[in-house]
């Protein structure tokens, strides 16, 4: 809303410039900017939803006067409205006081509707309104001055010498000032005469009942409507006007007569003649109950931490329109009826400190808060994982939580997918049950930026519904694709394969002390031959493998993708805690074993047998070579394993080691039909 500083100065004698006023309003909490207009700069203010009383020049004046000790807000002095001795017959009827707690109205006869005077036109221009006619401009100016919206009707259109404030009836319609026709119903509050609705109460007047060149007599309405009803009507019909904006936030039920008086005073000023009031009534079935708040005199200082002398609090509140009654060590504060935003003493403290100035607050730190501190192992694990993965060349991704239904369908085990009622679009209509489709999209994006090495990870939730309950679980997802090693002067380029991915994963698990036990499994998102589940004592925690080729191609990548996704919180709990375990003082000795094995067997099968039959002295073994080709039969593959033997009691002699090794080799050859080389 535009504020004309020249107009302000008619009510508060300040010498501040536009710039200075802008600054003052900003510091007391009113957002604003300076706009230039043909007649000079004006302010454009923005209110917070709780302060509709700022939507007027009076409201702004009050703030400025409160801010400066030497200023006083003096609203326009209005002549007392004289009730006509013999009023003409007319009636105002309110159907439901709850909808309309107060309706003040008057008839003014022999009004000449014409072009506004130069002064009025200038005022309109400065507050950003189009000048229509003297009467219409005056009704707008009343609203912009004291904040209360009024409405002026052409009296001759009102049939039956009455105005009824009632709900609309089904089947009724009304053509509004903007020439749109609306169908009315019982949710709408209307102003009607004996026959028909003539205005949508608090929102917009009817086209035909408005003031025009042919108007000679007017009916001035100044009323208070229930905010919720006006809001509902405005929303339902999609109509937002200056009037509805104010009414729905809460106007001043005690301000209707002042607004009417202001209208009459402005008419007199504009026409040069005292208005001929032939009817006046103020129907006030539901009087406003004044709101009282008790404020301990010491409370402002306690809440702000600033020493606020009592007289300061009293002065500021009084200037803002509050009435204070002394009650020993507290005040009984009466809230002015134009303030709809206060509920307790903290609100009063805010009024005091914001007018006094937040710059009076002295920055202090609270002294240490003593309470039981706890560790946060989930956060620490996340930090450690982040360090390790980034150190190993992974980039962290952060994505939205939304997923398209097709992407979620690739994970059939998560049947309870969660949908949004009002998504941004179909592709964002569900919540993720896996992070993998999202990070694959991230990889495609970066391939298109020219990156050939893709290694990413993400921490994020998956969402699902089970037994009617909503669940969220944190996942850790990792994926790689493209080149593991770029070509340089020493090495050839090396693409990622499952083995290099697994090396990186193993490195993470080792760092975190998580056991890595993988069991072959099947899943529609992964290739049949390359899919493993992570099996732990607390259950299966996720999968790792090669993403199905058709999914990879569909997403737009052309190199294979290897990925893993795990339930992070359960995974981190599998970690072995640190602790000292004594190690053997005696050296280990190695023996190698080279052999051929049937190609249909996998390394896994070997491991299973070794684990099954290994002697206590076997401290470890490594696959040091694997060969196939010319010198080996087509249906076989060759391995070389280096076994380490160590005793906890003594240094093994060569014969003892040989004996253990022979024993082990013999068993392996026997069980797996190996051919020793």
């Amino acid at each position: 809303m535009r504020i004309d500083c020249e107009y302000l100065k008619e009510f508060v004698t300040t010498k501040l410039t536009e710039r200075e006023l802008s600054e003052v309003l900003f510091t007391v909490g009113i957002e604003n900017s300076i706009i230039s207009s043909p007649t000079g700069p004006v302010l454009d203010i923005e209110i917070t939803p709780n302060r509709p009383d700022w939507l007027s020049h009076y409201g702004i004046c009050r703030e400025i006067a409160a801010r400066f000790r030497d200023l006083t807000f003096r609203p326009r002095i209005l002549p007392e409205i004289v009730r006509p001795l013999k009023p003409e017959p007319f009636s105002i009827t309110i159907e439901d006081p709850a909808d309309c707690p107060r309706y003040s109205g008057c008839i003014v006869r022999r009004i000449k509707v014409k072009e506004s005077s130069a002064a009025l036109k200038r005022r309109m221009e400065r507050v950003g309104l189009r000048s229509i006619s003297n009467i219409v401009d005056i009704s707008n100016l009343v609203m912009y001055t004291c904040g209360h919206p009024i409405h002026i009707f052409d009296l001759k259109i009102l049939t039956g010498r009455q105005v009824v404030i009632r709900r609309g009836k089904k089947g009724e319609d009304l053509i509004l000032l903007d020439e749109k026709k609306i169908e009315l119903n019982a949710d709408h509050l209307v102003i009607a005469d004996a026959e028909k609705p003539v205005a949508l109460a608090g929102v917009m007047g009817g086209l035909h009942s408005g003031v025009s060149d042919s108007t000679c007599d007017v009916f001035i309405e100044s009323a208070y409507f229930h905010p919720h009803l006006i809001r509902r009507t405005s929303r339902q019909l999609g109509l937002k006007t200056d009037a509805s904006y104010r009414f729905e936030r809460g106007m001043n039920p005690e301000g209707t007569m002042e607004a009417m008086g202001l209208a009459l005073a402005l008419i007199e000023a504009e026409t040069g003649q005292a208005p001929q009031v032939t009817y006046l009534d103020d129907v006030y079935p539901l009087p406003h109950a004044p709101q009282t708040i008790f404020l301990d005199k010491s409370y402002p200082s306690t809440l702000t931490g600033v020493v606020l002398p009592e007289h300061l609090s009293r002065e500021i509140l009084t200037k803002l329109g509050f009435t204070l009654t002394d009650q020993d060590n507290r005040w009984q504060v009466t809230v002015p009826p134009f303030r709809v935003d206060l509920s307790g003493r903290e609100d009063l403290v805010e009024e005091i400190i914001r007018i006094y100035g937040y710059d009076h607050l002295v920055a202090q730190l609270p002294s240490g808060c003593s309470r039981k501190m706890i560790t946060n192992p989930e956060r620490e694990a996340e930090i450690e994982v982040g360090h390790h993965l980034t150190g190993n060349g992974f980039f962290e991704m952060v994505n939205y939580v939304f997923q398209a239904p097709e992407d979620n369908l690739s994970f059939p085990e998560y049947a309870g997918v969660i949908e949004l009622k009002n998504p941004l679009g179909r592709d964002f209509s569900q919540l993720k049950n896996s992070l993998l489709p999202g990070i694959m999209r991230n990889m495609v994006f970066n391939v298109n930026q020219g990156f050939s090495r893709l290694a990413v990870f993400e921490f994020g939730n998956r969402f699902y519904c089970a037994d009617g309950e909503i669940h969220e679980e944190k996942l850790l997802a990792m994926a790689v694709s493209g080149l593991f090693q770029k070509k340089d002067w020493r090495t050839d380029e090396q693409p990622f394969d499952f083995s290099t991915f697994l090396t990186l994963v193993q490195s993470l698990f080792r760092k975190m002390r998580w056991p890595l036990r993988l069991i072959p499994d099947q899943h529609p998102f992964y290739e049949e031959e390359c899919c493993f589940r992570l099996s732990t004592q607390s259950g299966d925690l996720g999968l790792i493998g090669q993403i199905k080729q058709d999914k990879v191609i569909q997403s737009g990548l052309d190199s294979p993708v290897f990925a893993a996704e795990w339930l992070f919180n359960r995974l981190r709990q599998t970690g072995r805690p640190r602790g000292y375990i004594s190690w053997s003082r005696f050296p280990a000795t190695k023996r190698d074993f080279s052999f051929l094995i049937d190609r249909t067997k996998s390394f896994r099968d070997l491991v299973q047998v070794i684990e099954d039959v290994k002697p206590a002295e076997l401290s470890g073994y490594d696959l040091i070579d694997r060969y196939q080709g010319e010198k080996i039969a087509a249906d076989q593959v060759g391995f070389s394993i280096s076994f380490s033997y160590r005793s906890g009691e003594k240094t093994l002699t060569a014969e003892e080691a040989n004996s253990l090794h022979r024993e082990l080799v013999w068993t392996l050859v026997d069980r797996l039909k190996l051919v020793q080389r």
Partner: protein
Amino acid sequence: MMELLSQEIEKVRESFNAEVGKIQSASDLRVTRETYFSRKRGLVTGLYNRLKEVPGADKPGLGMEINRLRVFIETALQQAEATQLQDGKNRIDYSLPPSDMPVGRLHPLTFVRREIESIFIQMGYEVAAGPEIETEVNNFDALNVPLNHPARDEHDTFFIADHDGMILRTHTSPVQIRYMQSHPPPIQIIAPGKTFRKDNPDATHTPVFQQVEGLLVDKGIHFSHLKGTLEHFLRLFFGESIRMMFRPTFFPFTEPSADVYISCFLCEGKNDSCPICKGRGWLEVLGSGMVHPQVLRNCGINPDIYSGFAFGMGIERMTIVKYGVPDLRMLYDNDFRLIEQLG
């Protein structure tokens, strides 16, 4: 004596012949030169010294032999040097580039979040977390947000289908509510996390964004404590020279409330058309206030005994202001180039 010296001369020659083939680099060359010609311990230098003790008649002869040896060694070393320069096979070029060992980085939002967390942890705050899908009660009602508030419209908040009263949280304040309901005061927490609002993505809005909110509840906490805490945080996060402005505003869950601004470090308020602060000279970074007594009551905390403050900031906004990212959507593109720069 004469035999001894000529034998020594022979030994030195043999020793050199054995060594010369092993010269591979400039440092080898230098070492060899030192071995034979160094003033104190050089083997040839030693021969010349021994010459002094030889009887006069034998001197010229032996002297000539040593000279011949010296010339022989010097020539051989010069040749070795020349060969070195021509024959690159044995030379090691230490200026060749090292292999690329890839280094990854945390996402800028994670990095900034950790920066913010560290500052508050240092001040004694605990990091709390809560679910991303929340009840309307925890997200709005418990925070004193009335039913007809525009934020509760379907065009601002994401509602969960088939689960009445469940939404994607619009701020991390519900974490504070949960914490207050399950822990007696004193309370000192920050709650970072993802939050969701139904906004179409543009340069300053994304439907998913991250916040860090904070809460301190104890006896005797007041507004100046809030100002002090936030000033402390802003100085540590943006730098000592930053100026802060504390300005009144409105939130349903705090009273009094304050918006916090920092001085624009691009133009310092001197440029009316500054792209960052739009000429204001100030950038809004935090919302805050004293926790509304009704909110405390809703969590079973007696506002006559305890008071507290709360504050909140957008991690994206802090990232953009501190590191100059021009468009918020870039933070969700996950472009390696941006992550490399800011992570």
